[in-house]
């Protein structure tokens, strides 16, 4: 492959990668992508000479001017977002450049545009795809710029020396002779590109970790795609959650640190992620009728959610939430503390809300008290007094509601003595007597819950929860509907729970005066998410683990993590040091302590110090004994250094030692030393040049003099006296100083 072909190939690899990166954001329409792909292909054909046609500069200018009107129309008339308009414009301008016979400036323009495409992609996607594509782009870019530089330099030189083409021969330097080579291959350039890329990535990693951050890492990705999620507002129509359950898109990932006693011998306890609570049912939809959420005061980076004392038993949950069009903050029940949110508000249904995050991800942590209360404890709660607000909101039944619901509740709970027993009976009845389905077809009009309970006898979680709430309320138990998510699929590779829209769920919270709101889930087990096993699941888990690592350590990397990393490094170094402490420290600590006492006593000058510098007990006692070890260490170190220096000097001066014994060998030795020194300066004696010719060519007095000495000894068989040996040493030293 010629250099020109290499350069064109790598350039188009770079353009293609930039294009693929933008395509991977899924922000662009198929037509734009297809047209640009055509332009890219045509450009390749033009530059490789397979296509004779190319667009002229004049025509390209007119087309560009015309496109500006089209871009304005896209923005104003068709209402496209500015980002898409800009992307279309960039594609169009790049296509025009690609369809021309390119000059050096055109290539540079295309490189800059491709780089801008990379920047835009960084603002529009945060998953690991970006990383892989960036690496491919970097490899292409390194190859491209290396090839472009050689191409440009060769052209520039040829232009200034057009009258005399220069032919270059290549020779390989062997031990004995030179061997003629052909033209050098470009394999070394490709190898350099790979090596250069590896070095760039190795250097970029610590730079990335060390650069100062001024805001949280997840934020400000203003061009991210937003996931639409329904069912989590203050008014939810019955059936909306079921719609959400049809979507497999990931909503969030949760890393959970369980309380020690919740592991149940290794099995993780099931949690649910609370979203919104709804209290008013009008027969078709559930609504929140409480006052507006109240904003909580931020202390540092956290929001305290309970006034009571903290219990040691809590569960830590760290949420990585995708950009969503809702403001709900998901967490396990009974949250105690929230960290990492820009703002937090809480409503009277204990729902949590934050600032909109349609275009950026959220990374926050919640600490919750997830200790379960035993039924026996709840059974002891016989209190029936309810606050008026509780009664008003959580005992509400819709006007004209089906009375059969109440009768069914009475029938199911006949004989139940406690509230908890009532709740459990209703829950159990719904779980066992009804089927789970996502099929939303209704047979009769009217109350959908009644239709579910008495006619279809099958439904999804919303119906089960709604039915339980109505049945509890008909029995006088305050209850409310909760919309949220099931725990999700556990990924052991990443140690996170991946929560998808299909994990959306509805359940019930019933009020127990002594305990508060207690959760019940009447949905049959068939309605709970089941996750597959096998190779695909394993692959999915590892891909998500990579994704998590990318999100946590790259996309979400911030100042806090930098500090944490520094502390971790310090702890690691300390642990390394402590590894050797036990072996060395006992002696070191002893005499360091002695040294400290000596210092202290010296300062006090006579108060308790008997001034014994030389103790009778041996070198380990007294002041001398205390500093004995470092002195000995220093002494041996100096001896070692001296011996090393001595040996080194002897080795370096070996020709002088030989001078008195073997003249020829000493002459060769110092002459070779001179040649080595000159070689470092770029002067190598060719094999066909005699020492005298070489010296004459260099015109250096020191070289001439040494060469004379060499010839005197080597060929004249005249010994060197001490002065001459010293003179040679001086000349060699001067030569080395200059090199």
């Amino acid at each position, binding site marked *: 492959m010629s250099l020109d072909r290499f350069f064109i190939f790598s350039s188009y690899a770079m353009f293609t990668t930039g294009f693929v990166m933008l395509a991977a954001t899924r922000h662009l329409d198929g037509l734009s992508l297809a047209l640009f792909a055509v332009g890219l292909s045509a450009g390749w054909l033009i530059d490789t000479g397979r296509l004779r046609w190319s667009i002229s500069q004049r025509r390209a200018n007119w087309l560009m001017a015309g496109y500006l009107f089209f871009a304005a129309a896209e923005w104003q008339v068709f209402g496209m977002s500015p980002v898409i308009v800009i992307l279309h414009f960039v594609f169009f301008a790049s296509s025009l450049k690609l369809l021309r016979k390119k000059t050096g400036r055109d290539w540079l323009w295309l490189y800059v545009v491709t780089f801008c495409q990379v920047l835009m992609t960084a603002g529009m996607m945060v998953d690991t795809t970006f990383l892989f594509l960036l690496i491919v782009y970097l490899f292409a870019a390194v190859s491209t710029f290396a090839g472009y530089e050689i191409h440009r330099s060769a052209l520039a030189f040829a232009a200034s020396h057009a009258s005399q083409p220069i032919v270059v*021969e290549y020779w390989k330097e062997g031990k004995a002779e030179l061997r003629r080579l052909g033209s050098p291959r470009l394999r070394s350039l490709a190898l350099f590109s790979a090596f250069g890329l590896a070095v760039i990535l190795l250097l970029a990693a610590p730079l990335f970790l060390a650069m100062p951050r001024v805001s949280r890492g997840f934020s400000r*990705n203003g061009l991210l795609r937003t996931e639409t999620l329904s069912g989590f507002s203050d008014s939810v129509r019955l059936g909306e959650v079921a719609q959400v359950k049809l979507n497999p898109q990931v909503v969030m990932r949760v890393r959970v640190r369980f309380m020690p006693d919740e592991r149940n011998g290794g099995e993780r306890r099931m949690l649910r992620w609370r979203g919104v609570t709804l209290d008013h049912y009008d027969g078709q939809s559930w609504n929140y009728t409480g006052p507006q959420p109240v904003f909580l005061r931020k202390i540092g980076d956290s929001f305290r959610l309970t006034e009571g004392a903290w219990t040691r038993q809590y569960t830590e949950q760290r949420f990585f939430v995708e950009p969503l069009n809702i403001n709900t903050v998901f967490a396990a029940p009974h949250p105690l503390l929230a960290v990492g949110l820009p703002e937090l508000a809480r409503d009277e249904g204990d729902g949590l809300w934050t600032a909109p995050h349609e275009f950026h991800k959220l990374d926050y942590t919640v600490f919750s008290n997830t200790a379960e209360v035993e039924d026996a404890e709840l059974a002891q709660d016989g209190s029936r007094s309810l606050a008026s607000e509780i009664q008003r909101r959580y005992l509400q039944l819709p006007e004209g509601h089906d009375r059969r619901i109440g009768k069914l509740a009475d029938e199911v709970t006949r004989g139940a003595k406690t509230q908890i027993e009532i709740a459990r009976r209703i829950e159990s009845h719904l779980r066992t007597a009804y089927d789970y389905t996502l099929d939303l077809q209704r047979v009769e009009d009217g109350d959908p819950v009644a239709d579910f309970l008495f006619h279809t006898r099958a439904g999804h979680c919303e119906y089960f929860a709604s039915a339980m709430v109505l049945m509890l309320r008909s029995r006088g138990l305050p209850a409310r509907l909760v919309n949220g998510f099931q725990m999700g699929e556990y990924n052991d590779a990443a140690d996170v729970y991946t929560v998808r829209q299909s994990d959306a769920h509805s359940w019930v919270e019933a009020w127990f005066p002594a305990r508060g709101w207690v959760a019940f889930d009447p949905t049959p087990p068939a309605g709970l998410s089941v996750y597959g096993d096998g190779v695909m699941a394993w692959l999915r888990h590892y891909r998500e683990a990579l994704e998590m690592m990318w999100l946590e350590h790259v996309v979400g990397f911030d100042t806090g993590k930098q500090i944490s990393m520094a502390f971790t490094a310090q702890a690691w170094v300390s642990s390394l040091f402590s590894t050797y402490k036990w072996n060395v420290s006992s002696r070191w600590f002893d005499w360091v302590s002695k040294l400290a006492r000596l210092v202290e006593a010296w300062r006090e000058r006579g108060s308790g110090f008997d001034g014994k510098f030389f103790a009778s007990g041996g070198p380990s006692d007294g002041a001398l004994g205390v500093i004995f070890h470092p002195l000995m260490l220093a002494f041996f170190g100096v001896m070692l250094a001296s011996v090393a220096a001595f040996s080194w000097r002897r080795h370096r001066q070996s020709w002088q030692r030989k001078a008195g014994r073997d003249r020829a060998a000493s002459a060769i030795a110092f002459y070779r030393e001179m040649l080595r020194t000159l070689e470092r300066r770029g002067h190598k004696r060719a094999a066909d040049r005699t020492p005298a010719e070489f010296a004459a060519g260099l*015109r250096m007095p020191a070289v001439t003099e040494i060469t004379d000495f060499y010839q005197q000894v080597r060929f004249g068989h005249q010994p060197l006296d001490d002065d001459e040996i010293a003179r040679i040493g001086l000349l060699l030293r001067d030569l080395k100083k200059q090199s």
Partner: protein
Amino acid sequence: MFRFFRRKKSFRFVLISAMLTVAAIGIALISAVAGQVGEYELESLGSKAALGLALVIVVYVVPRLAQRLHLNSDFSIHVPNAGLIFFALILMVTILSLSSGNNLLYLVLAVLLATAFVSWAASRLDLRRIAVSVRFPNHIFAGESAPFDVTVSNRKRLWPLFSLTVAMWEQDSTPASNPVSESARVTELVYLPIIPARAQARARVERSFAKRGVYPINGFLARTRFPFGFIEHCRYIETTGEIVVYPQPQPLDDFRRLLPLLQGRIESRVKGSGSDLYAIRQYLSSDHHHHIDWKATAKTTRLMVREYTRDDDWRVTIAFDPRVEKESAAAPEFAEKFERAITLAASLVSHFIREGVEVRLLATDGDSGFGIGRAHCYRMLDRLARLVPATGEDGLGGRSPVLPPDDQLRIVIASAARNSLSNWPMHSTQTINFEEL
């Protein structure tokens, strides 16, 4: 055996440096351990002592090391336009990253910064361990193309050499125009895209020099913008030498009007009583009968005689007096006249040498002595190449050439009046002034 002890200073330096370093390390270690065991006073004392020793080391060792160290100033860096654009991009991404907090932009920034470093390191590495040599002819004439064989060796074991431009840095000496000012110029010789490791590239470059003179070679400049064109590294490779460009001899017909006296001598020089046959002509009454060529006579039926060359003591002295008054030297046309004078001298030398005449060149820098042959010719041309106008305080500085009395033909080229060399016999001396050229 104890010769190395003769260099007491260096041995003492090593000894003291080692002791100081070990002591500083030992005290620092003590300080660290003291901190571990809670002896904070000792820790404080030890750290201060270690710092003090470090300061002593800096004061004692570093200057001495710096004296021995040859700080490599052979490398220089230049940032071309592409590099300016690249660094502007880095700045732009920096601002975007800091303002947005987007970690992916930070990632791009880190990659850009790493790329800048790799660019610098790779171009620097590219220029290491290279050797450049140039061979050119010993005799170069002005206006003629001369082959320069450039050899670039890549001494690196593994790393190829990419995108190298080799230039020669030489002084542009134009002595006739202004003997004082000399301007350096860099002449690009060859561009090499790739040289494999442990290989060399050879190229033949044709160069021509418009003017005669001496062009001292200050060294080579090896330049590269590899790998990305963002940074241009330049390395100066020291070398010494000079390119001597001889004046280009012209046909003497060009100077015919200046050499009337010489014409006959030039022509008559070739006819004499030597032993080499010059021509066969018709007999004249003054010819000796021994010179009759009977064979030619029989052929032509007319008496023919042999004519021989003159090979005994035919000598020419060319004296070039570069002395000139300051006012004359300042004249705008003087440089051209001086060059024509040099060219005339070179033409005469070349002509007479070609004719086998013993030629001597006298100038203020010395006497070449009589000689024949090309080697002698080149020596004289070399001297002519180096001649510069000589201006003294009295307008006629420099030594006046001394003329021995036994010459047969003298040609003086000077700018002074004829009486500047008044001790020369006028009848056998052809004087040519610069002003006549």
